[in-house]
């Protein structure tokens, strides 16, 4: 009788263990950025750029968003600088306009200097 009770208890324990582990599996996995990828955010639509392919789409002529070449862009005399109370701190006027890194990779990997 006692042995039968031990066997039944062990079987129940085993079943509970398996169900518990399976439950853990169900919530595992990569969601990259749960919440964001899960759909709590709202993306912007491509209709922002309509009409597609004509001139500048939603962008007007002269609308530029890219980086300047190093030394190829003089800093304008800024009407609203630190003195005029922008919420950000402007780089000092003595600082030249920076550009993106221009040095070639030289055969190394993405993370290696050569």
């Amino acid at each position, binding site marked *: 009788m006692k042995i039968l009770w031990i066997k039944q208890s062990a079987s129940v324990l085993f079943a509970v263990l398996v169900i518990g582990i399976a439950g853990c599996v169900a919530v595992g996995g990569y969601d990259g950025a749960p919440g964001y990828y899960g759909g709590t955010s709202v993306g912007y639509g491509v209709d922002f750029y309509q009409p597609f392919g004509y001139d500048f789409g*939603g962008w007007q002529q002269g609308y530029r*968003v890219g980086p300047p070449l190093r030394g190829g862009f003089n800093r304008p005399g800024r009407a609203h600088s630190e003195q005029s109370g922008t919420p950000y701190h402007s780089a000092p006027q003595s600082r030249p306009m920076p550009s993106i890194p221009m040095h070639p990779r030289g055969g190394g990997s993405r993370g290696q200097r050569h």
Partner: protein
Amino acid sequence: MIGNVEMKLRTKGLRQYLTQLAATIVIAVAAIVPGVAAPIELPPIVQPANGERHPGKMIWADLVTTDLAGAKRFYGALFGWSFRDIPGEERNFSLALLNGEPVGGLIQRAIQPGSPRQANWLTFISVPDVSEAQRIVLAHGGKVLSAPRTYPQRGRQAVFADPHGAPFAVLQSSSGDPIDVLADPGDWIWSSLLTPDPDKDAAFYQAVFGYEVFDLSNDDGLEHLLLANDDYARVSVNELPPRGAKGHPHWLNFIRVLSTTDAAAKVIALGGQILVAPHLDRHGGLIAVAADPAGAPFGLLEWPAATSKEVVK
């Protein structure tokens, strides 16, 4: 005598039962645990680890798409990317590689019909400390869209929205950040934020990433700012063109191409769209805005060849 024998037999039977049960448990756990202990192993941003830190630099992007297989075909043909599916209990994540090195992630997600959501690239910007970044984001009017989470090899990451709602992610890379060299063709070269209030957003991102802010006045009457650190331009912040309700603030990431015109033609041949036709930007090269077949926008930016005169810092 007979009772003793009977007891021994019963005890032996119980021992056998417990032994078999233990073996079954071990086998069952061994079969299930891999899915629990290692849901997915994201690779390091750089290999070997280099310990570089470039806060404010865009170091990664994840595409959330409704068509993973289609995205692989499109980006593979357009930029020469190859792909590696990441093993895990989910089968919908793939790593994009350029010349064998990871440049981004592709994740499949269904979108409900009629939902305003759409396929999109999520920009990851380097930070030295995700928790500290979160504190600053919240203190300056941003929101947490996805709480910080750690992936052993990748690092710690979180997704936020800036005060105007543009989503962006931060990543504290375990292995370090990519070094500052000119991006290879097919790699990310630039990121731009389009926002209704560049001043306020520049202040926000300056607080989070410690940028220097430079004015990039244009002749279009709109405000454009350049955000830099380590004496390198990192991103631009641009006033949204007047598009009314369609003007959602957003980040747009650019990939370096050798010819924007050729790449734009290829986008169309591969089933994508050109949203903004190739045109000259301030560096003297052509840029364009494209969308993949699922509708995820990205930029094309041609940039002159690297110069070896610049010294790597």
